[in-house]
């Protein structure tokens, strides 16, 4: 086995105990603390017999160790039980709400990277020039603004005042009757505001990050050598400097995997986007524990997988990382 593969395998193995801890910690929060989930189901209006049935249905009448084993088993097989609120298997609810979330966050991530990198290169071309200053101030501003507030302003401007874009949902009411091309257009129109705001918020930090990496690399000798060879400045910036500056970004890409799953909760709530974030939000209101647990575990799984992916990508892209292992 090659050292690279062995290294990746080692990292993957190290993720197993962390996953186990994550699953166990959620169990502790929900079950082992007195006054939690069991009391939640105890509706005082029910007769003792009916209450017993409910407790039995959710397996709460069993001793804790047994509940824990069932919980572990469910987490491994992806069976999170039945939603209190929707009376449906949680797995089906997640399967229905995950695709809209991925559409939204995927678009936002794309926008984030494209806009962030472009701004960073323009800013780094002339440090302390006007583009740099405007980008710095803007990215600081966007960092400080809560996304829900930004979303409200955008709705006020583009939906209420100008009437250009829809302010909520993923499709128009009549979308089902439209031909495929018009349906796609309809989806895109609904996507612009939520994905735009999410992408903009991400682009602010991406731009800061890539700009710092670019300015770091400007000092290096291979760029001096490239300039000595008479390569045009613009080519040096976009090709010679940007490539190594994007190395940390590859790691960042792996680390943004969790964003795809969990990054859009607030935006989904504001724009009534039928995604997982909104599902989790309604579940939190109704204290629909199985749904909340499934979403949390899925989010945590994405973080762990993202870390692993970042490691793998880094080794795959950077020849130095391969040699040192």
């Amino acid at each position, binding site marked *: 086995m090659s050292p690279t593969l062995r290294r990746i395998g080692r990292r993957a193995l190290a993720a197993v105990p962390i996953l186990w801890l994550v699953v166990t910690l959620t169990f502790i929060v929900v079950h082992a603390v007195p006054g939690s989930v069991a009391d939640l189901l105890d509706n005082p209006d029910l007769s003792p017999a009916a209450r017993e049935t409910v407790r039995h249905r959710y397996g709460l009448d069993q001793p804790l160790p047994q509940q824990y084993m069932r919980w572990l088993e469910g987490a491994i097989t992806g069976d999170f039980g039945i939603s209190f609120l929707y009376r449906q298997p949680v797995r089906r609810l997640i399967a229905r709400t995950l695709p809209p979330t991925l559409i939204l966050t995927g678009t936002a991530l794309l926008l984030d990277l494209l806009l962030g990198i472009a701004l960073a290169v323009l800013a780094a071309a002339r440090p302390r020039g006007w583009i740099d200053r405007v980008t710095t101030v803007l990215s600081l501003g966007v960092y400080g603004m809560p996304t829900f507030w930004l979303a409200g302003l955008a*709705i006020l401007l583009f939906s209420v005042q100008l009437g250009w874009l829809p302010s909520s949902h993923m499709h128009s009411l009549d979308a089902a009757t439209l031909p495929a091309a018009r349906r796609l257009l309809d989806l895109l129109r609904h996507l612009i505001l939520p994905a735009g705001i999410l992408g903009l918020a991400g682009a602010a930090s991406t731009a800061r990050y890539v700009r710092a990496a670019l300015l770091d690399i400007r000092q290096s000798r291979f760029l001096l050598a490239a300039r000595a060879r008479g390569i045009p400045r613009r080519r040096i910036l976009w090709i010679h400097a940007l490539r190594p500056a994007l190395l940390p970004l590859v790691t960042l890409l792996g680390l943004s995997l969790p964003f795809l799953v969990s990054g859009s909760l607030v935006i989904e709530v504001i724009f009534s986007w039928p995604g997982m974030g909104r599902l989790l939000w309604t579940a939190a209101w109704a204290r629909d524990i199985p749904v909340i*647990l499934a979403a*949390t575990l899925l989010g945590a799984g994405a973080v*762990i997988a993202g870390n692993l992916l970042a490691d793998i990508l880094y080794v795959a892209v950077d020849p130095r990382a391969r040699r040192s292992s």
Partner: protein
Amino acid sequence: MNARWPGRLRVGLTLLVLLVALCGAGPLALPRLPGTDPAHAALLPPGTRVIVTTWSDGRVLLEPGPAAPAAATSIEPGARIVSTGHFTFWLGSDRYGRDLLRELLEGGRISLMIAASSLLLALILGVGTGIVAGTSGRLLDTLLMRLVDALLAFPVLFLMILIVAVFRPSAAMLVAVLGATSWMTLARLVRGQVLSLRSRPFVLASRAAGSRWHQVWRLHYLPHLTGPVAQDAALRMGDLVLAEATLSYLGLGVPPSIPTWGSLVAQGHKVLVDGWWLATFPGVAIATLVIALALIGDGIHETVRRLE
């Protein structure tokens, strides 16, 4: 202030002190509007000046404009004017005729207190765990760091929602949740610093010269920990302000009867079309605070870098 302080630090600190002073003392200094009839004062735009007339039967009426109070014809017989005065809604009023400026300052005090208390909790947990992990044996160190890894794996907002949904939210609960979910990177930072300081020449020299452990800590460890911890704390506080605002906005923070900046934005969004100012000003306040904290964090980083 010392001229060697970076400009960012000075701007950030000035903004922070200003906000804290405004929210701390502002509600006391503001003129109080006596209990009014919301029908006359609801959704007034910023800068609206009204005439307040108090009547002998206890009613308080608000009328727009600088003109004299309206004729007493609309008032029940027997009642007379006790006093008249002016009141200006600098930031407008909400659906219930409440002064947004007062709500904003009172909400800010609560938002600031929640963020500061949860930061304190995170600092205690993070620095404590970091020092224990950095100085203890390998087994405890490994266990603590695996716990940190596992906790860091949760998307913070999801974890907060999970805890808030299981337990009933209250202000104290919120502080506990926010603090308990934001100490992990601090612990990593402190542990790393302690481990790297342990083998630095000046620490070894001090130990070889016979310094007691508390002398080594006071003279070498703590000064080197202060800068990075302070920088992280400033940024962390900004994150906590945003997290509290987000949870309150989602209705999962403190009970709705207590105003915070996040819940003010949420209420403003309910009347977005008729009262743009209601969501706008609390958002500006949040952004100002978070940006001030980011500037402070940057400034501390710069100062520490210059000192070294």
